[in-house]
């Protein structure tokens, strides 16, 4: 354990060079800038900003990613507190009490408790990653191909079924993603699959083009079809601060939120949606209930901490196993691959310096976030006033620029457009985006592991269930699929809690 802290300390020394600090600061600034913009979450912020990092070395690039990631998360909560129409599931809960606080003139305190809570949860979460990821990686190096295959099946099944109202639509998105992952040369036999004779497709699809197309362009096209013509109501806000009473009421929810967020973040269970909800329910039960629904600070502090702790938890499976469990992790992993670094349990030993610098820069990014965002909050709030035609034209511009800059081939803009239209269709028909992105990333990995396992066993499919871990994982999958109806019965209570709040809110407006 102490070794890990030493390594983290070494990483801090590397990451704290003036150049790297500058990259971290630029990352936090750009991430918050993009994250504040309506309709853009952290995954999209990273995907849009990837081209900027192409000329950097991997370490600097990842330091910038870390900043972009935390900045994007914080930007998202700023939007939901000041606008009350969050674009991401993780911010929904924050918006419920946060926006009430802003309406009641306590926007500054809501932003402050969100920022400090994010800082505390992010810092604790990152330290936990530093403690757990290496231990997990040590174990994971021993894991055989069959167990790996089982783990990936688990990740796909869980993300597909745990979120959203309709598992069927989840599977539709998953298989679309897996099919997209097939495009390109088959690595074992060198035969092109699903390329339709187009040379640009032989090299496999660039996950960045897929992600930017589905997230950025898809969102812009979907908004274009349904653009709100009424002006949105933005609450002006001053410099965030908290009084003594706010601190007293916030610190316990921060810690409880962190305790919910981190474990859920490490699981392929849809990121922050479940822990933020659990945190909200807990605070509502423990706090002064008369204030909940009218803007209770506990209802912002807890879920925001849960959100950021789960964001840190995501790094455990990503760094230790090479398994992404959120869209953001998928984009980050594909960025790793573009630097020629193979994700997996060996990452911790082969690229130890990179990993520890990344973890250290997550800590630095957290501090910078606090330093930059508290004073700049009024400026971020102004960004929400950009007229929508120009805002979405800008998103379109940067999405096309990113796709084009990779290969300087107009064909890539065409691909971007195709995936943008797919993203539009998914939003229209209620298909969740996460299973598709994970399918694109994990599909090829799964195929490699399957063929590896089968090559060793000489074609005997029984090998897939001969490792104890694999058997355990398959049992978990079966239990999960069987148990899901029970879970959804539990989730059915969720709308009641949320609806109760929504009704009050509607009364309040009208």
């Amino acid at each position, binding site marked *: 354990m102490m070794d890990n802290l030493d390594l983290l300390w070494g990483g801090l020394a590397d990451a704290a060079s003036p150049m790297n600090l500058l990259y971290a600061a630029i990352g936090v600034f750009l991430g918050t800038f993009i994250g504040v913009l309506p309709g853009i979450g952290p995954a999209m912020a990273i995907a849009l900003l990837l081209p900027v990092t*192409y000329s950097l070395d991997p370490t600097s690039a990842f330091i910038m990613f870390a900043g972009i990631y935390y900045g994007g998360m914080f930007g998202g909560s700023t939007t939901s507190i000041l606008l009350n129409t969050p674009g*991401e599931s993780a911010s929904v809960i924050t918006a419920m009490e946060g926006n009430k606080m802003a309406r009641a003139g306590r926007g500054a305190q809501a932003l402050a408790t969100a920022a400090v809570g994010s800082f505390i949860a992010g810092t604790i979460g990152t330290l936990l990653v530093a403690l757990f990821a290496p231990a997990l990686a040590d174990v994971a190096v021993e894991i055989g191909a069959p167990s790996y295959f089982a783990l990936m099946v688990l990740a796909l099944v869980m993300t597909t079924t745990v979120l959203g109202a309709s598992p069927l639509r989840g599977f539709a998105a998953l298989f679309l993603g897996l099919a997209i992952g097939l495009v390109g040369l088959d690595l074992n036999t060198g035969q092109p699959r699903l390329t339709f004779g187009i040379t640009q497709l032989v090299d496999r699809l660039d996950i960045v083009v897929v992600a930017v197309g589905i997230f950025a362009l898809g969102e812009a096209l979907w908004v*274009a079809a349904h653009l709100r013509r009424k002006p949105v109501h933005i609450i002006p806000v001053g410099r965030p601060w908290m009084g003594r009473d706010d601190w007293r009421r916030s610190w316990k929810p921060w810690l409880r939120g962190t305790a919910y967020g981190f474990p859920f973040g490490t699981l392929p269970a849809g990121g922050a949606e479940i822990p933020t909800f659990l945190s909200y329910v807990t605070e509502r039960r423990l706090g002064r209930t008369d204030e909940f629904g009218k803007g209770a600070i506990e209802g912002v502090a807890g879920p925001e901490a849960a959100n950021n702790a789960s964001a840190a938890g995501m790094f455990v499976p990503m760094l230790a196993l090479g398994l992404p469990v959120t869209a953001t992790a998928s984009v980050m992993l594909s960025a790793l691959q573009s630097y020629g670094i193979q994700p997996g349990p060996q990452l911790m030993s082969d690229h130890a310096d990179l990993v520890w610098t990344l973890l250290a820069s997550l800590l630095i990014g957290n501090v910078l976030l606090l330093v930059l965002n508290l004073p700049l909050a009024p400026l971020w709030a102004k960004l929400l006033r950009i007229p929508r035609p120009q805002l*979405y034209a800008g998103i379109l511009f940067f999405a096309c620029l990113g796709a084009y800059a990779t290969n300087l081939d107009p064909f890539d803009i065409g691909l971007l457009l195709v995936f943008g239209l797919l993203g539009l269709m998914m939003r229209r028909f209620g298909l969740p985006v996460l299973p598709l992105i994970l399918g694109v990333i994990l599909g090829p990995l799964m195929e490699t592991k399957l063929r590896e396992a089968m090559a060793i066993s000489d074609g005997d499919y029984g090998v897939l269930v001969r490792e104890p871990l694999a058997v355990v994982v398959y049992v978990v999958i079966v239990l999960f699929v069987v148990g899901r109806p029970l879970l959804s019965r539990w989730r059915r209570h969720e709308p009641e809690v949320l609806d109760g709040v929504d009704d009050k809110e509607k009364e309040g407006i009208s």
Partner: protein
Amino acid sequence: MTTTTPDPAADTTPGRDLGQLGLCALLLVLGAVTLYDASTLEVGFADVVGPRVFPYVIGTGLVVVGVLLTVATWRGSVPEPDGGEDVDLTEPADWLTVLKLVAVVLVVIATVDVLGWAVSGAVLFAGAAWALGSRTLVRDVLVGIVLAVASWYVFFVGLGIPLTPGVLDGIL
């Protein structure tokens, strides 16, 4: 991504969303294409799994999901469209705006090699803003030119990537 919570009442809402059949058709066609494409692959001797197994599984999955969704649509399963900050689902969809945006991107694809990024990028921004309902054309064109030229220089000077200069070759 979705912001609305699951609505148990949606299943009992009368009326079917027949537009969903288009999605089903897409899933079925993609599944069929994947299966056909897999059948054209050759299997090597030493390769025990071969390149076909995965596409077969995925193609079958697409077809099965397509069929199930068709049945669900017929039985009245209605999708839950994505919400968002700037999304107003109470108004009917405005597909004309989407078509205009697609047209603008197509123009960029067709012209970027000839005109260069600085020109096509400006057209992209101004055209997209216009399609989305902006009526300050002069300002949008100016902003577009500034964005496009600035991004050209940032990529060239800062990142060492020369975006296509096009007709402005030698001027930039």
